[in-house]
């Protein structure tokens, strides 16, 4: 827990960012899953807790005393709710809000047990004293090493558990590139689209034809994703990799996807992503064209079941309708989980992507 962005009594709506936590993947902004009023902050800043620990409790609207976890679903014991309003001095209440100390966990030493400023100071100092050395002693190299370990664990698990199959196809993107060129020519510079946006949209829409590419392999069965949230593999300058999701790419306009992509890249490199972005991807796209790579066969990010790779757009001799021409071509590849789908379906999926790139105006 790095910092709270809300305090007890604050009204929050689903999707609001309530806290900043540091994980091995970097700083993550925690979004809230329910709407209501923050009842108490359970975990003070500077504390290290296991994933799944209740960070805060919120009181849902119209529910006087219900505790809901602000963090991920796993059920951790709910802290006891204060039966009556705590006796807290104004100075203590303010300091608690500022420092994110949950007053329910503070013992008052003032007259009649009132919680005073000094009590909050002690409570705030206690966990920090324990946690600060650890947090402060995590310089960038260590954080990088930690991220490396996370990637290693995920990739090793993927190759250990997921029976990958690989398909690739070359796609003529002349229509897409021409459309993009014309479209960008009439746009102001900040509004111009990158080819990546068309690729992301094509993948998201192709899922409609082959839904078994979009989702997870969990407990011996395929579970379809609740939406089409496309994870975008972003390499970080200092090394390492994250694949945060753009939500509902199938339902968004290209302009919106473009804007979100730029925002995501910027924030990923600044090291501040939101919890839903980090955990929600239902399929991942990796694009190594910038590096001159023509074909990439990626490793699926478990428990997802498919990863689409794009290489560089290159001009190639291209035979079409008995004529030889030069066309811009991109190689699309698919790494898919054979437990969830077969090569036949994978082929259809790549064909669907190719077909959609033929009709760029629909993207």
């Amino acid at each position, binding site marked *: 827990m790095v910092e709270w962005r809300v305090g007890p009594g604050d009204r929050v709506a689903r999707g609001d960012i309530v806290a900043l936590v540091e994980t091995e993947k970097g700083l993550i902004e925690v979004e809230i899953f329910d709407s209501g009023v923050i009842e108490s902050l359970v975990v003070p800043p500077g504390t290290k807790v296991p994933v799944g620990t209740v960070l805060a409790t919120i009181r849902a609207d119209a529910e006087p005393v219900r505790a809901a976890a602000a963090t991920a679903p796993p059920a951790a014991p709910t802290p006891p709710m204060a039966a009556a309003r705590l006796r807290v001095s104004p100075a203590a209440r303010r300091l608690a809000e500022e420092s994110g100390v949950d007053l329910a966990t503070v013992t008052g030493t003032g*007259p*009649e047990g*009132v919680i005073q400023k000094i009590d909050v100071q002690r409570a705030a100092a206690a966990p920090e004293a324990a946690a600060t050395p650890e947090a402060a002693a995590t310089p960038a190299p260590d954080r990088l090493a930690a991220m490396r370990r996370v990637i290693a664990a995920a990739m090793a698990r993927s190759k250990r558990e997921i029976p990958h199959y690989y398909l690739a196809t070359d796609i003529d993107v002349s229509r897409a590139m021409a459309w993009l060129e014309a479209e960008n020519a009439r746009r102001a510079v900040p509004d111009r689209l990158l080819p990546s946006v068309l690729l992301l949209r094509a993948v998201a829409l192709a899922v409609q034809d082959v839904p078994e590419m979009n989702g997870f392999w969990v407990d011996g069965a395929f579970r379809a994703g609740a939406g089409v949230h496309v994870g975008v593999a972003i390499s970080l300058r200092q090394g390492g990799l994250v694949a945060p999701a753009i939500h509902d790419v199938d339902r968004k306009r290209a302009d919106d996807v473009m804007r979100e992509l730029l925002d995501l890249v910027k924030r990923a490199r600044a090291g501040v992503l939101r919890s839903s972005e980090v955990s929600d991807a239902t399929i991942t796209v990796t694009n190594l064209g910038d590096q001159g790579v023509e074909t990439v066969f990626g490793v699926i990010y478990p428990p997802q079941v498919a990863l689409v790779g794009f290489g560089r757009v290159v001009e190639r001799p291209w035979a079409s309708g008995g004529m030889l021409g030069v066309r811009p071509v991109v190689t699309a590849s698919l790494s898919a989980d054979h437990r969830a789908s077969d090569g036949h379906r994978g082929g259809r999926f790549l064909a669907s992507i190719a077909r959609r790139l033929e009709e760029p105006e629909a993207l």
Partner: protein
Amino acid sequence: MSSAGAVKTTYREAMRAALRDALARDPRVFLLGEDVGRYGGCFAVSRGLLEEFGPERIRDTPLSESAFVGAGIGAALGGMRPIVEIMTVNFSLLALDQIVNNAATILHMSGGQFAIPLVIRMTTGAGRQLAAQHSHSLEGWYAHIPGIKVLAPATLEDARGMLWTALQDPDPVLIFEHGSLYNMEGELAADAGAVDIARAAVRRPGRDLTLVTYGGTLWKTLDAAERLAGEGIEAEVIDLRSLRPLDTPTILESVARTQRAVIVDEGWRSGSLSAEISARIMEGAFYSLDAPVARVCSAEVPMPYAKHLEDAALPQPETIAAAARRVVTGRA
């Protein structure tokens, strides 16, 4: 405070030195009031001044507070710098009309044409068995009135130094001298002179609570702070010095550090100056507070004559310390 240039003196003598200094320095200054001349003042503050400065400048007046305060206002309008002595604040009520309706308003009602550079000194407070018509602390009433300044010198330095600064003020200034202080002895710098009349003073620094007081209760409060220190409670003591205007920033700054405040005021609690100070702390330092603001005031009775009853009616070091303990620890 003992230095080569310090002299042993009393509050009364310091006041007298201030009067003598003002009379000597400014020919416009003169003193008038009941028995200030031949008798030397009811509290002997002006003893010897008649002989030194003559009957033109040390003027005995009839027993009519309204008349001689009015005369002072007229003299101030005429360019003089009168010092009016009223025997006690209880008797000043006879001059309320002159003070509140004239002295405090003429600058405003003349459209800024006529200032009233008048100083009114009077005795206030109890503790000397002078009973219910000579012992009340009504300075808080005057602190309610816009257009005048209200001072409460509690130390030898302020007794010596406030008068001259008050005389330089273009507006009416009331100086309240607590009757129990006149015999207070101490050392004062031989060259002691004018002091500011705008700011409160921290008379004792402390970290656990702020005791706000003025005038005669300053010494009882310092006594209480000394007892508290023996119990590990470090009280900060603020001497208001000026009751109008109040030096609010000094109070709030202190409370922000200590988180607790007790106001000690010899006036009655209801509608008092202590209520005003308490309200200002709520307005300006609510989020710094660890405990409700507490007050130690006089019992809401006419001041008793009997010694034990008078003592019981007034704030005392024990009651001040008890209030401070309740605020800090919850137990008296």
